């Protein structure tokens, strides 16, 4: 909202700044309470794991929206599109000829040891040759105001329902301010998503039957699953609602069995099919992988996209873009040191207290070390882990995420760190919903925006100008 150097309000925030100056603390907190109550009553909640009550909480919502001017957004769109095309080419390549490995851009050992690499997918043709249909890339901004890509989230990115609900809430709470800006709408997302799914159907010509596969009502993102299914008008199913017969997938209805063409699965690869992956999975469907590999049913996202989420692979994305597209990356990565490279490792170990160290395959803010805030003991423990399993760790300099005015617990307004998760769909063409989920670290000085660890969210307005 304010310039880092001159402390002036950015022009696109001027109107908002004036508008908020008219509110006193009480009226703002009133609005906030009202919205939070609505969220709770409508059950717009997520479940916190490790809490024995299975408590449902609302995702804390901040009233001050983030505004992104059109020009800035255009750059983001171009960057995300480029990234997604390259990642898809990469996934297709590694599951087929492996040209990028033969050309020694990426070592084979790195690809094959990625935790989510699926050897079963080798040589399998996926519908329309698209692997990542739904992508939720995390972006941050550095000191210079550049958007950097932090993670790609190519498996089952969540959060889009909060994005849509946040917009509803803002339109209700600040109709006047909203209408003064020409904000791009976001409510076309469910339609776009449905089109993306239908595009995959192996039974073209026949009205495709799409379903959303959820792990069930106790999953943390269950609200989102029902929300999306309802908006798209498709069935939400659990593993036990599906059955595979002769390599075709059916759902069990009161009128008998109905064939399913496309599954938007919000379930990790591991749990999809107990015959193929984890035997103890109660959430999956026996025989699903056989039906999938025979092309009788399509999955979105494809199986095996998790390779792209490996943080070591992430470090190679700029090279992946150059390799497949012969272009310079539009969105830069955060500089990343790979512990398995000897030179990098000694750098990491000697600068541990000034770096962020992350496990290659954890998410949600878990399994990481914030060097500057760590105790001596924690540093030592991590150093040992890195030496034992260099393949599993990467390190990045601490990027001080950009901050955005946010209403704090004591109702003062202060800067809090934010990131941005736009949602990208890859169907007939690539579509990006105009906006994204701006996540905010509500605790002072915290850099962790994950909802499971004290994060909240804001509405994100992309302007039409």
């Amino acid at each position, binding site marked *: 909202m304010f310039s880092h150097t001159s402390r002036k309000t950015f022009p696109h925030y001027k109107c908002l700044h004036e508008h908020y100056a008219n509110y006193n603390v009480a009226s703002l907190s009133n609005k906030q309470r009202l919205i939070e109550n609505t969220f709770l009553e*409508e059950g717009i909640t997520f479940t916190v794991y490790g809490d024995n009550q299975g408590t449902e909480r609302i995702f804390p919502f901040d009233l001050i929206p983030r505004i992104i001017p059109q020009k800035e957004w255009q750059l983001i769109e171009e960057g995300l599109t480029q990234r997604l095309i390259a990642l898809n080419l990469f996934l297709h390549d590694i599951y087929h000829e492996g040209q990028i490995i033969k050309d020694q851009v990426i070592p084979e050992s790195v690809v094959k040891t990625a935790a989510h690499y699926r050897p079963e997918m080798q040589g399998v043709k996926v519908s329309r040759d698209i692997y990542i249909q739904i992508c939720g890339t995390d972006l941050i901004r550095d000191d210079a105001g550049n958007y950097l890509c932090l993670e790609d989230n190519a498996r089952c990115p969540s959060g889009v329902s909060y994005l849509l609900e946040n917009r509803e809430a803002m339109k209700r709470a600040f109709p006047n301010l909203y209408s003064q800006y020409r904000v791009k709408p976001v409510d076309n997302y469910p339609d776009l998503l449905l089109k993306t799914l239908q595009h995959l159907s192996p039974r073209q010509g026949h009205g495709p039957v799409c379903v959303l596969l959820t792990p069930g009502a106790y999953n943390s993102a269950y609200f989102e699953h*029902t929300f999306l299914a309802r908006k798209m008008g498709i069935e*939400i*199913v*659990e593993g036990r609602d599906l059955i595979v*017969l002769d390599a075709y997938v059916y759902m069990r209805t*009161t009128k*008998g069995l109905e064939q399913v063409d496309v599954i938007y699965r919000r379930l990790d690869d591991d749990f999809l099919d107990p015959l193929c992956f984890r035997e103890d999975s109660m959430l999956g469907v026996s025989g699903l992988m056989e039906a999938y590999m025979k092309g009788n049913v399509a999955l979105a996202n494809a199986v095996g996209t998790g390779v792209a989420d490996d943080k070591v692979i992430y470090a190679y994305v700029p090279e992946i873009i150059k390799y497949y597209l012969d272009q310079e990356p539009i969105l830069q990565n955060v500089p990343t040191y790979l512990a398995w490279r000897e030179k990098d490792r000694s750098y990491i170990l000697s600068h541990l207290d000034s770096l962020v160290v992350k496990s290659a395959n954890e998410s949600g803010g878990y399994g990481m070390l914030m060097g500057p805030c760590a105790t001596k003991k924690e540093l030592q423990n991590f150093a040992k882990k890195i030496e034992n399993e260099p393949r599993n760790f990467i390190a990045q300099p601490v990027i001080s995420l950009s901050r955005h005015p946010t209403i704090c617990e004591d109702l003062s307004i202060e800067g809090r760190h934010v990131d941005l998760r736009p949602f990208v769909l890859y169907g007939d063409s690539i579509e990006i919903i105009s906006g994204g989920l701006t996540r905010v670290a509500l605790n002072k000085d915290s850099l962790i925006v994950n909802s499971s660890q004290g994060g909240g969210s804001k509405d994100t307005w992309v302007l039409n100008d």
Partner: protein
Amino acid sequence: MLSRVANSLYWLSRYLERAENLARLVEVNRYESLDSTDPNPWLPLLYTTCTEKIFRESKEQDVGMFISFSEDNPDSIRECVAHARENARMVRDQISEEIWRDLNRFHLFIRSEDAVELWQNQPETFHRRTIEFCMLLSGLIHATVLHDEGWHFMQIGKLIERADKTTRVLDMLAYYQGIAPRAKLASALKSCSAFNAFQAEYRSRISLDNAMSFLLFSASFPRSVRFCIQQLDYHLHAVSGSPIGSYTNEAERITGSTLAQLNFSSSSNILQVGYHDYIDSLQKQFNEIGQQVFDTYILLPLEIRSNTNSETRRRQNDHQRQQQQ
């Protein structure tokens, strides 16, 4: 419609009906116990709801708390609402916003300290609020969703529960072996919201025979067993599409035969069999109907049942556990 969804809709409305009946039963009992000299005025209530054993094993000392709020009691009002809400959560995409919102709101209320406080200070208000809430939901179910297959499943769940609860109230009367005091008869009728309706038909001729006849055989009182079974028969046929008077599955057959029996019985028939046994056999039939609905629509079609035994067994166990409550 997905079998699981049909199952959730069925239990959603069945649990709401259960909560409503429970609240009414507790309120009538509570009011009556104010004048009672019985040291254990709540005992018949535990007996009616089949929760004596669980109460004895529970940490909860207070019967009232046990029936209204205890987590140990899978059938407490609070738990019933929680179950209803849980089922609603699983089929959120199939029900209206209004149903979900009001159900969730009441769930949040009944879990709060405010609810316990209200119950302690103004129990009548608490019970009335619960009943009103269930009626609101019943109205919303009637007025905001398509009257299609899913709706029929909701009605089926509700009607089986309602018929069952009416027989349980009757069973409480059977306990007095034909010499139930007038006050007990009145409270039994009130427990089924039947007092005024009864008076309209029988004036002041309140007797065990008349009360029984009314609650079992009335053709026009919506909580009489006969009325419920007649409606149930209609909804079952609406789901299967077969004409009334015939049957295509066991649920329809047993319902039809139970209905015929109710249509052509009188209180003298009951006397021959004995009150308790008569009611007992009705309850068994309701259980069987519930089981058959489940077997027909929720379990896998016959030809593939053998493939997924564990899932079939799991579903069956779940169903029986809930039904027995």
